[in-house]
């Protein structure tokens, strides 16, 4: 049996690039021990009792810091959080000592069951209070501060009264949580709803950002013929997203940055190269820090 007391590297994530941990890459990673800032794991994939997933994650964790990313807590739902799921998350966080824990501003469970997608919610005083209560409950259950990720959305709600950036800022203010800024999601939502992504970033409470996500999107059209981007995580990061990423880094400096690639997963060297590319973009942006298109220093 793998020893739970195997020596580990420190939990803290440095300001470097990491990638999502994919089962098909683990043998190559353990053999080559590549220079990667961290690996991010989807919490729900490690909620079995034992077996190869945990054995291999123990090996990875002994060599690298990890971040724990939940995709099933349904924080953005009006229904009470699933207490059993919170307990599973807390147990995982205790076992693997991740440097960060993050979840989404979205919902995924309702009476019908778990819907396996990050579904959108209206932004109102009512939903704000509900999300804040769920985040406080989560932070209490895990005994740590969490990061909340901005969503990719394909529809808005007629009843929304609060801009998304203001909604996120108020959540951070009320709960003390940090934010995970998904730059691809900014590009996707900006295109889908016809707003300026730079203006969104300018309004975003960047001082609370503790991690950045990057990914590739797919393209479609809506009924009216407007370009519709889909947060597909199935391809390289697009040039427009790299440009936004550089804007953010030039403003707040390098942050732990994850390249997400969850579908049509490439060979390990391709994903690794994408993480190195993120570090080159960040270095370039840091060199011209303060010259970003939006300027509030933090």
């Amino acid at each position: 049996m793998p020893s739970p007391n195997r020596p580990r590297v420190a939990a803290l994530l440095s300001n470097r690039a990491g990638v999502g941990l994919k089962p098909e890459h683990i043998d190559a990673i353990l053999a080559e021990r590549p220079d990667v800032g961290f690996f991010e794991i989807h919490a729900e994939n490690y909620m079995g009792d034992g077996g190869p997933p945990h054995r291999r994650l123990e090996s990875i964790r002994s060599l690298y810091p990890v971040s724990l990313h939940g995709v099933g807590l349904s924080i953005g739902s009006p229904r009470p959080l699933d207490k059993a799921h919170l307990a599973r998350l807390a147990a995982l966080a205790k076992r693997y000592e991740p440097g960060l824990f993050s979840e989404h501003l979205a919902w995924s469970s309702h009476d019908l069951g778990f819907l396996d997608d990050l579904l959108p919610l209206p932004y109102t005083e009512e939903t704000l209070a509900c999300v804040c209560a769920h985040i406080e409950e989560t932070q209490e259950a895990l005994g740590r501060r969490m990061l909340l990720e901005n969503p990719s959305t394909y529809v808005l709600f007629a009843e929304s009264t609060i801009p998304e950036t203001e909604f996120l800022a108020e959540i951070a203010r009320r709960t003390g949580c940090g934010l995970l800024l998904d730059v691809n999601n900014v590009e996707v939502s900006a295109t889908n709803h016809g707003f300026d992504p730079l203006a969104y970033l300018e309004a975003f409470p960047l001082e609370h950002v503790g991690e950045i996500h990057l990914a590739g999107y797919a393209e479609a059209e809506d009924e009216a013929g407007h370009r519709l981007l889909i947060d597909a995580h199935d391809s390289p990061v697009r040039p427009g997203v790299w440009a936004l990423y550089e804007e953010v880094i030039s403003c707040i400096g390098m942050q732990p940055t994850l390249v997400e690639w969850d579908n049509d997963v490439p060979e390990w060297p391709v994903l690794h190269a994408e993480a190195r590319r993120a570090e080159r973009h960040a270095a370039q942006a840091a060199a011209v820090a303060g010259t970003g298109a939006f300027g509030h220093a933090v």
Partner: protein
Amino acid sequence: MPFDATLEAFVEALADPWAPPPAETRGREGRPDARRFAVYRNNVAVGLIASVEMRYPVTRRLVGDDFFRGLARAYVAGNKPRSPVLIHWGADFPAFIGAFEPAREIPYLADVARLENAWVEVYHAAEATPLGLAELATVDPERLGELRFVFHPAVRLLRLAHPAASIWAAHQGASEPRSPDHWRPEDALIARPHADVDVRILPPRGYQFAAALLSGASLAEAAAPLAAEGVDPGPHLVGLIEAGAVTNIR
């Protein structure tokens, strides 16, 4: 609209592929947009279908991608997970296949799926240290018959009406699978004593013997039906221990 009612309407529209997009949703033209809402409906279906595909790779290979996707889509439409832990979801898919009219022509399909489900359960089951034969050898022979065994959490026993374990094994490589040499029922033991899942076809009477021990019978009780037929239970017991199916003697 109250938060809960908004989401209720959203879920109802997700569940019905013919429903219009929820009235509260907005696209860039300031009105509901069916193609935008369809992204969510598609994500839900595609995500859950992918989970079924991942759990049942040989079943998929046996019927082909298109047929399997239709089968999985029908299953997903009526069987949403109760928990976000999808590695534990889809255990009743074999029963769904058994009742799925278009799959009737492939009578062994549900059995292959049962084996694949057991494989995944065993893969994720808790760790435990298997009992070695040397530990069994330390038992006073006079007391052997009184022994009861604690099984490893990563053990499943299956009775298959078709040679599903042979079919499954023949589909493990990329090469063209061979048909089973003998078309007959098979009993299988799926175990993961350490890191790797091991699938074994049990010899005749092996299932009854193992199932009796697994349900708490003493060695003498489990061995009696075999002894009555003049069969030595010894090799069956040794086989179980060698497979790493047992962790303790009580």
